[in-house]
């Protein structure tokens, strides 16, 4: 391979792949003579002669980098080889060359979905519906993306539309819809659909797996195990079966058995080691067993592997630029010149639960939403969405936050009201609201990045910022996968860096504007639950209700990684958990020390 091989691993030169200069691409008519070569590559690939197909594709693409046929075949080859980064890069080029290529768009959405890049996945899924509005698969893609993007009500619409267009009750579609309903906490409806799906097609792995996860989430561990037993017969080699079984065993507190199961799984993975999800699960189990050094090793191994496989590392520069622009724009002087949106009194009001991922936002939401007047909105992506649509809504040539400068124009003074109404309308569409609830929560982690914007849109909305010992957050961030915060949790150091950036930004907002802001400590929830819950409800402006103390009985399913914890009674296992991991956390303690002190926590001795 030459020195300038593309970093994506496609096998092409960078100048013919990800770093291509559009001007260097020869005109299509000048490379017509290569079409027979592409056809030979296609034939070789169909015949299973991958080596020949690959060589021919590379030859063609070196001369004519925009030959979609060659790109498609090479994509198939790289995908089959498990080289997902290269596969994705090639697929993107196919879609870019032909935006109306439904098949490639479909593949790209599935790839993005698998990678967890829901924001871009949504863009292409919507395009799929535009390309083929009557195609059931187009709606299926939207259903999947919306369900995973925490908008299951929208996802449900598309799944039901898929069923309608398909004209029959396809077993897989039923299972997809069942998963979507499970994510809305509608367990009984979900179960009924799983039963229907399995009755129609008893041996579909994903269906049985999803059903087992649904039962596990609904705390029917025996039922989950029974489904997994059934699945083990269908797919004895599928590592997900044992991974899920290990998760269920863990929830049943049978840690030894769970770890043993995972260890036995390793041999079934490529290279004889567990995948990223399995490694983190193993680490969590070891943590519960008090085997902390081994646990952290598993966490780090899982994070490294995830980073290597996905190519998702912290977008450091992007984060630095974003924070600098927000700090530069949101200053007291400028804020004095900007209008605020009015407060709507005819619709339920948001309560923003802010915090770094893994700081306890799920616990707080579960607690508050146990109240009769507070509905759970979960992680609403809407504030982030508003930052994207703002330039269009305000007719600004500039991006957010600079687009807010349009509010100085006489005909844009009510722009914030429009954005506020857009948010509230989306909330209604997402099925968040429920009768009797005057409030709903929005607990999108790291929404505090946009604290200034939130306060402009909802100047009276309660902002509850969940605070937790930063080192505990780091331990938790290492033991779970999440993509929030520009992939900061792909490594310990970058998680700490992003945490510091965001907390400093919060400090900036708080020093520059008046906010209805309450810091709420996770540790207080553990130590003095009732007083803390009363204070939080007081702050929201609702009477205390005793069921908020029994949030674990709140049958609402929290969709985030914390769901297992919040369905248990409040426990203090996670409080100051970092003390068990000091040796591993040592590299980030100097970075976090000022914040630890500022927050009033102890900085552990070296």
């Amino acid at each position, binding site marked *: 391979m030459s020195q300038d091989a593309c970093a994506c691993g496609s096998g092409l030169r960078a100048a013919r792949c990800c770093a291509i200069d559009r001007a260097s691409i020869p005109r299509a008519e000048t490379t017509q003579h290569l079409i027979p070569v592409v056809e030979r590559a296609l034939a070789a690939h169909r015949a299973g002669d991958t080596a020949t197909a690959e060589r021919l594709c590379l030859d063609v693409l070196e001369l004519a980098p925009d030959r979609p046929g060659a790109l498609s075949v090479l994509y198939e080859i790289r995908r089959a080889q498990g080289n997902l980064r290269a596969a994705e890069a090639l697929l993107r080029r196919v879609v870019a060359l032909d935006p109306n290529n439904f098949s490639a768009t479909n593949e790209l959405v599935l790839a993005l979905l698998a990678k967890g890049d829901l924001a871009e996945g949504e863009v292409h899924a919507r395009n799929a519906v535009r390309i083929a509005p009557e195609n059931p698969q187009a709606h299926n893609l939207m259903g999947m993306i919306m369900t995973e993007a925490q908008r299951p009500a929208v996802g449900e619409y598309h799944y039901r539309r898929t069923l309608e267009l398909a004209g029959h009750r396809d077993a897989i579609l039923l299972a997809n819809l069942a998963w979507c309903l499970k994510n809305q906490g509608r367990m009984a409806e979900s179960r009924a659909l799983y039963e229907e799906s399995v009755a129609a097609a008893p041996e579909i792995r994903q269906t049985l797996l999803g059903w087992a996860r649904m039962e596990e989430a609904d705390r029917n561990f025996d039922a989950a195990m029974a489904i997994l037993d059934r699945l083990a017969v269908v797919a004895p080699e599928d590592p997900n079966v044992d991974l899920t079984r290990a998760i269920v065993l863990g929830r049943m507190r049978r840690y030894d058995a769970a770890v043993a199961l995972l260890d036995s799984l390793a041999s079934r993975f490529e290279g004889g080691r567990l995948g990223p999800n399995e490694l983190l699960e193993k680490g969590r189990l070891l943590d519960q067993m008090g085997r902390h050094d081994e646990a952290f090793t598993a966490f780090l191994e899982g994070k490294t592997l995830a980073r290597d496989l996905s190519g998702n590392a912290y977008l450091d520069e992007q984060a630095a630029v974003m924070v600098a622009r927000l700090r530069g724009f949101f200053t007291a002087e400028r804020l004095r010149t900007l209008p605020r949106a009015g407060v709507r009194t005819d619709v339920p009001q948001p309560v923003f639960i802010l915090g770094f991922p893994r700081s306890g936002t799920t616990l707080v939401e579960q607690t508050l939403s146990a109240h009769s007047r507070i509905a759970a909105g979960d992680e609403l992506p809407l504030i982030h969405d508003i930052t994207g649509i703002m330039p269009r809504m305000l007719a600004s040539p500039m991006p957010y936050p600079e687009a807010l400068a349009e509010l100085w124009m006489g005909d844009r003074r009510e722009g914030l009201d429009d954005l506020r109404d857009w948010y509230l309308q989306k909330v209604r569409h997402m099925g968040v609201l429920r009768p009797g609830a005057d409030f709903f929560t929005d607990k999108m982690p790291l929404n505090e990045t946009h604290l200034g914007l939130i306060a402009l849109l909802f100047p009276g909305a309660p902002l509850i910022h969940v605070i937790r010992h930063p080192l505990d957050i780091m331990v938790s961030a290492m033991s779970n996968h999440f993509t929030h915060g520009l992939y900061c949790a792909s490594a310990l150091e970058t998680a700490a860096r992003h945490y510091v950036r965001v907390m400093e930004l919060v400090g900036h907002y708080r*020093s520059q504007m008046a906010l209805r802001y309450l810091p709420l400590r996770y540790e207080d929830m553990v130590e003095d639950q009732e007083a803390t819950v009363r*204070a939080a409800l007081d702050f929201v402006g609702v009477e205390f209700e005793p069921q908020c103390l029994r949030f674990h009985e709140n049958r609402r399913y929290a969709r985030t990684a914390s769901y297992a914890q919040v369905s248990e009674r409040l426990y203090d296992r996670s409080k100051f958990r970092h003390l068990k991991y000091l040796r591993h956390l040592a590299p980030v303690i100097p970075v976090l020390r000022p914040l630890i002190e500022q927050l009033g926590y102890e900085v552990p001795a070296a």
Partner: protein
Amino acid sequence: MISVPVPLGEVLAIAAEFERGGRLEEAARLIAHARGVAPEQPDLLHLAGIVAFRQKRPEEALALLEGAIAGSPDNALFHRNICEVYRLAGRLGDALAAGQRAVSLAPGDALALQNLAIIQYEHLDIAGSVASARRALALDPASPGAHFELAEALLLRGEMAEGWEEYEWRYRIAGAPQLMPPSDKPQWDGAAMGDGTVLLIADQGFGDVIQFARYIPWARERCSRVAIACSVEVAPLLRQIAPGVPIFQAWRECPAFAAYCPLSGLPRLHGTRVESIPAPVPYLRARPERVAAWRARLDALVPAGFRRIGVVWAGRPTHNNDRNRSTTLARFAPLARLASTALISLQKGEAAEQAGRFFGRAPLINLGAEIVDYDDTMAILDVLDLLVTVDTSVGHLAGAMGRPACVLLPHAPDWRWLLGRADSPWYPSLRLLRQDDRRDFGPLIAGLAAELA
């Protein structure tokens, strides 16, 4: 650097000349050169310490001055100077010992006595401070610093007759800001004026202006024509208390006047004594439309039913006693533990940044960022349940409005708060919370929080 065989005494003299002329870098370079030859020479160490102090390196300055004293323990000048450096570093015990040593070594040094008077005031040894200041004045009757120190001590004790007279020396202190451009007109003596205009000057800090503005109606009774020169910030306040009086913010716009008087000079002319302090409270009022706007804003920001406690933790950092009078927001944590309470920050300036780093349990609403002028501050004070502030203009404003406020005072407070008492004859609605000799605001705030719980 090339070694030049210049006698040490001459090097010292040149370096001292540079130091006096404010050429500190050159002085430091010369001293460093000389110390290469005589590293422990006490006079050099002393001068190096003075330069380091003026270059805002107090720790280094103290180390150098202590070195000078170790080498020459009976040099009164060294003790006199380290006294002030210790004081500004907050090492008050060391400052007092140094001040006393300087005076014992040089009982005829008026400046040593003046420094001792200052540090005695800080120790709340007011009798000692008065005695030292009087001894200094006996040696140097025209020392403005000693007169001013005597004034502060006397006024703090409530001895206003002599205190006001001594207070008149404040504008003669070296480096004091000038009251006004040079003028051939006399200072008003308090006698009734005919047609001539008396120019009242809103001098000193904003708190002083608010405090002494109460005398403007008294002055207007004696003068048919009054004009006021003031900064833009306090103009709205003075317009309230002196409707119809021409108010100017630039000297070039001032009308011709027959006499002038700083507002802080009016109590002397009025003949104010503790028992006759005029307190026509409220003499400042919030504007109704601003009150309505801030009430609506606070109703949106503060949960219904929450007690609203305003907080101010720092004054202007350039105030000469800011080190003692200001604290940090973190010290207000006990108030943040009160149930159903919101802290409302009215803090302005650099210290306001602390609002972003405060994680007390009560919500902290940082209105300081949105306050534009004193009209805003007054409107907010109108809708608060209580203000808790260090000794700043906001405390004066609450007092002038008759709003409830607790003012946190350092161990040795400004003279206007008098000694010992929890009330203020200047402002009946204020409650004074005084530091004890631990010089800590923490116990005061904790005690107040316990009362409010």
